């Protein structure tokens, strides 16, 4: 096909609609929009209902669960704030996530880089050893992990929990780094070595900055995973002082036979808030990171 024909095609897309007149494709487009709007309403419905009722008193909620609150009151929020010890739980969650993230990124980038650069059987074996774990479900590990955590007395502390996340997270990160390093020219390593750079300094000053795109992907995926993980903290954290946001909220639930929904809903909204705000701010990066992680992983 000549370039002219190509250009003509691009300028005037030939669709069914064009040939049959606008009227025939418009209903389809409207239907699609309606479908998407309904699906969006469905997606937001539970969050919206939670938000709406978190501002009501128990009586107001019983009276009409769908109505807007007669006046905005934050009593439920101050109640929930105390009950889930919000600031401490938030701090614990941040601490676990940050420790896990830093460990995963620093250790995996080093390992992924060297494994990718070194040919030979040993390197291949080590890489296979790491990648292997991606097939093993967490549930096959958790029982013995629990025992080992007790033995090493990392059980019961947020720092210990962060360290465990490093162990569980490195394989996927190494896999992603390993693939990405191939796109960085080897000449860079050699030039730096001739300049008399030590290997480790070479890596952190020259190579690591070049890994930024994949580092961002890994940071996003692992932050999401660690922040939202429930089962591992449930097994590892025994003292309510060390609870993460999810554990505190979960405890709030068990506490009441007949659930005190106004306080619970406020707690759920409080727990969601940090993530939703970050999501709306960093949406583009998060979505790109998720796609990259899924496609390459």
């Amino acid at each position, binding site marked *: 096909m000549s370039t002219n024909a190509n250009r003509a095609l691009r300028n005037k897309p030939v669709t069914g609609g064009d040939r049959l007149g606008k009227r025939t494709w418009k209903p389809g487009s409207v239907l699609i929009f309606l479908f998407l709007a309904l699906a969006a309403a469905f997606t937001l419905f539970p969050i919206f*209902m939670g938000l709406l009722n978190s501002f009501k008193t128990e009586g107001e909620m019983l009276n009409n669960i769908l109505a807007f609150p007669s006046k905005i009151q934050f009593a439920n929020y101050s109640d929930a704030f105390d009950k889930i010890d919000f600031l401490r739980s938030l701090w614990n969650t941040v601490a676990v996530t940050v420790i896990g993230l830093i460990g995963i990124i620093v250790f995996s980038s*080093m390992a992924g880089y060297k494994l990718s650069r070194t040919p030979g059987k*040993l390197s291949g074996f080590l890489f296979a050893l790491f990648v292997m774990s991606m097939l093993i479900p967490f549930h096959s590990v958790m029982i013995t992990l629990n025992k080992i955590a007790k033995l090493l007395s990392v059980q019961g502390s947020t720092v210990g929990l962060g360290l465990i996340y490093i162990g569980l997270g490195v394989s996927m990160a190494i896999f992603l780094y390993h693939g990405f390093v191939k796109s960085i020219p080897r000449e860079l390593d050699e030039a730096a070595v001739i300049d008399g750079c030590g290997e480790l300094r070479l890596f952190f000053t020259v190579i690591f900055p070049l890994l930024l795109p994949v580092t961002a992907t890994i940071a996003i995926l692992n932050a999401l995973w660690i922040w939202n993980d*429930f089962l591992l903290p449930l097994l590892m954290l025994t003292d309510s002082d060390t609870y993460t946001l999810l554990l505190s909220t979960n405890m709030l639930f068990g506490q009441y036979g007949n659930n005190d929904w106004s306080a619970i809903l406020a707690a759920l909204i409080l727990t969601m808030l940090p993530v939703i705000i970050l999501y709306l701010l960093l949406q583009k990066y998060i979505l790109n990171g998720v796609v990259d992680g899924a496609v390459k992983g």
Partner: protein
Amino acid sequence: MSIFHRHKTIFTLLGFVLPALLFYVIFFLVPAAGGVWYSLTNWNGLTRSYSFVGLDNYVEVFKQDPIFWDSLLFTLKYVFYMVILQNILAILLAVFIESRASSKVWFRTIFFMPNMISMIIGGFMWMFIFTKVLPYIAEHTIFKFLDQSWIGDPNFSFFAILVVSLWGGVGYLMVIYIAALQGVPKTLKEAAAIDGANAWHIFRHVTLPMIYPALTIGLFVTLNSSFKVFDAVFSLTGGGPGRSTQVIALNIYEEAFAMNSRYGYASAKAMILFLVVFIITMIQLRVMKKREVEA
């Protein structure tokens, strides 16, 4: 010189890999190997000593544990519905969203949002909907059919779990499918349109074969995550009423930590879960790889 050089390469390799390897071995490999070993023992959390019992645990799972088989069957049913519904819905949303111009970003943002939230929180939110909001709507509007025991009746609670899981999972796959759709060259679709193909034919014979790699990822992701489902069920029904919605992960968790602390026996169940996931994933990857080549 060359021997020195080779040793140096190996030492730097080990130096770079060691920190990651250390954490990985302690917190993953040793526990994984331990799981295999303990599945052959009668170790429990209460006593210090335990003994080797061979395959007794596995025999017991197969012969005397109907609850485990119920949970396995329930999980299979869940996986079946999830794999089909989640992928179809995600492709549908992706195709529809790609056809929009200005509202594209809005819809994508909204549909992905539940993925940011832990399914523990999502499950609790939905529990409020199922136990409070829907009964209210049923009582005060014409939608009387909404008045069901969504959490308390096993038939409905399966449906409730599906709804919550789809709510939380579709957005993730949708994002993957959108990325795949953007990689389909427009000229191909236009050529098909010139040849007189309608929208469905273009999708079926042009777009779909082009996004097969994404479909492989989508199926892999759904299979893997649905077999291991825990959070949504834990927060929504806790496996109940009774044990009617107990999934494998919950069964293992209860066996080890909540009920009887039979660590050895629970490890055997965990091994079975691993084998099931492993075999199904391998089959699926092989089949899909073949199709990709043919298409």
